[in-house]
């Protein structure tokens, strides 16, 4: 039985959809769910929702992070924010999983302060999934894993090797792939124009004997092809890539809506209705269940800021799956293994880097 801690101060409709998802999950699953936020507001809102109070607890978080302030100031002025309270619960319960739609920068900074790292893990990496043309693994999982997408902006070669190990272990567990194919995101398949960190990581990954198959560098236009099960990059590039992909999908959606303005096009769109709905379902980020923050000694799942009920329900399912499949233990073993074979892990903590949100 998993213990899922959900930050309900953020998300669509000021977190009310997050609470609805928690209420539904309390009725449908046997998990222990703790919602974090203003207790009086939660209690009032729960009166209207069918829920199971035996499976749904409330942790009071009286402070709110101010988005207008610098991250450090915002965190300092809100010591009892929902992220901080949630992370405290996580620190106390090794079996708990924290789900939040809060800012990645705030989550990473709080996690650095309150949670530990896996032995050998240098920095956390946010791992997002993205649908690809080729299915992955025996269960024909349509998603490839892309990491890091925003947790650690400045990375060196050792960090990328670390991310590769973490991503491969995660993919092996979640998608049941025996030897995941791992690629480094680069500006070409060769190394001629690649930056130093990519060349260094490529060298180390090629030499290391690991539980995954390193297939070399991958260009951004091949991300959706499905050639790789795990695509590794730094947080800055990963964030830009992910948002570009999402932006393209959103633009496609908008273009379809505009097409409906002309009668002939509208008829065409109607005829393609089922197919378009299937594509929309396939590319809808709310179906993915959020992005796990790997490298920490606790499980954290980050969902998008405007996550709705469906996104939270999928994130809860993902959290339960992480618990059931003991993904953290697998990630820890993979990181320890690559640290020992490639001697890339440095004993000291590298300088803390911030996520893109913090950089802005």
């Amino acid at each position, binding site marked *: 039985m998993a213990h899922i801690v959900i930050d309900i101060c953020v998300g669509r409709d000021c977190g009310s959809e997050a609470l609805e998802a928690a209420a539904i999950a309390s009725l449908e699953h046997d998990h222990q769910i703790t919602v974090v936020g203003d207790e009086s507001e939660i*209690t009032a809102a729960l009166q209207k*929702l069918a829920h199971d109070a035996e*499976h749904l*607890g*409330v942790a009071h978080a009286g402070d709110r992070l101010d988005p207008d302030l610098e991250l450090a100031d915002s965190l300092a002025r809100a010591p009892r924010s929902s992220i901080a309270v949630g992370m405290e619960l996580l620190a106390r319960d090794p079996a708990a999983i924290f789900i939040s739609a809060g800012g990645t920068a705030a989550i990473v900074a709080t996690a650095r302060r309150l949670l530990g790292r896996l032995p050998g893990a240098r920095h956390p990496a946010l791992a997002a999934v993205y649908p690809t043309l080729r299915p992955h693994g025996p269960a024909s999982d349509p998603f490839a894993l892309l990491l890091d997408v925003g947790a650690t902006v400045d990375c060196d070669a050792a960090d990328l090797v670390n991310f590769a190990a973490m991503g491969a272990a995660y993919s092996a567990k979640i998608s049941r792939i025996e030897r995941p194919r791992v690629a480094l995101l680069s500006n070409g398949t060769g190394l001629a124009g690649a930056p130093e960190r990519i060349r260094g990581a490529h060298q180390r990954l090629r030499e290391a004997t690991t539980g995954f198959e390193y297939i070399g560098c991958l260009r951004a236009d091949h991300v959706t092809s499905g050639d790789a099960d795990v695509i590794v990059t730094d947080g800055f590039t990963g964030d830009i890539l992910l948002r570009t992909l999402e932006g393209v999908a959103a633009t496609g959606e908008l273009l379809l809506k505009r097409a409906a303005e002309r009668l002939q096009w509208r008829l065409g769109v109607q005829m393609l209705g089922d197919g378009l709905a299937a594509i929309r379902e396939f590319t809808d980020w709310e179906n993915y269940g959020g992005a796990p923050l790997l490298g920490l000694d606790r499980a954290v799942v980050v969902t998008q800021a405007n996550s709705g009920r469906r996104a939270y329900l999928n994130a809860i399912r993902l959290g339960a799956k992480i618990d059931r499949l003991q993904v953290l233990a697998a990630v820890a073993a993979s990181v320890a293994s690559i640290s020992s074979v490639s001697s890339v892990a440095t004993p000291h903590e590298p300088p803390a880097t911030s996520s893109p949100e913090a950089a802005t």
Partner: protein
Amino acid sequence: MTPPEPPDSAPAPPVTGDPVAPVAPPVRRLVHLRWDLDKTYLQTNFDSVKDLVKTFWQKPEDKATVAGAQALLQSLMDPADRINRRVTFISGSPRQMRKVLMRKLCLDGVEPDMFILKPNLENLLRGRFRALRGQVGYKLKALLLSHMAQETVDEYLFGDDAEQDSFIYSLYGDILAGRVDAVRMAAILSTCKVYRHDVDEIMAYHAQLAGSGEFVRRIFIHLDRRSPLDRFAPYGARVVAIYNYFQCAVLLFDAGLLASRGLLAVLAAMAGAGYTPERVANSVQDLMRRGFVHPPAIRKIVQALDDAEKTVDRPASQFIQKFEDVITSLEHLQRSGPPIETDINYLGLYHEARFRRQQQRLLGIRLLD
């Protein structure tokens, strides 16, 4: 005959700020416990015809009780104080099931003073088909019929959210308290489509008992269907929707009706049924957040459990730890319970429930009652 001594752990005065529960009955006051059977005491599934048939043919030993219900009832009917306690079962099950149900209660060590079942065969033969599904006429009549005309009686009613128990029990309490006059009563019964014969009987009881006193102290509604809590808010503080019987035990202990041994027995029964400390602690937290109990009351419960465990040797320690965590996390909470409702809009509530039921459809046709 000398009345027996009160239980060893004499009830202490309640510490909640709730206006209904704190009226702790003196030890010698007669306590009348009125229980519904299906989905309140017994785990019953009526969702399909197959379930109905299965329930009908189920052997007594195969019938399961709701976790903690048996322990709670046994503790409330403690032989040391049995002379001051009465228990009545009023069930919608057909009279033909009396033997099986009585056998089940006997196996559970529960001896009801009254056991009323629904005359479903008679309703069927007389063509009173509405009465087969309807509960208002039958249960209200049974409650009024089995009311003990004594000045010193406190009634605690137990029902569930599958039927209209909160509506019927509240109406019954308000009839006794004199808050529902004959005109209003007739209008309610007419709206509820109660058969003329039943209306006449109920109105006769109404004339006899209306305004006899404030007897109904608390109505516990077991949330078998996990209905939203705001559905019970219009009934006021007297109705408490509960997710499990430990919540019920906490409130009865706080009201001075249940001894600490009883509280521990309910906890042990729930632990035996697979309840984890987190699950029980969440239910205690739920009561605190809804304002039914305050941190000092839970502290008293923790102390009582701690003391009782030393003598009875049961594994309550991990539960106690979780309760203490709940108190610590909600120490700041000073929430008052829901207000007492003295003017319940029964007609409005009936229609609201009816419209809710209309959402259920059979082959696209609305199911109207």
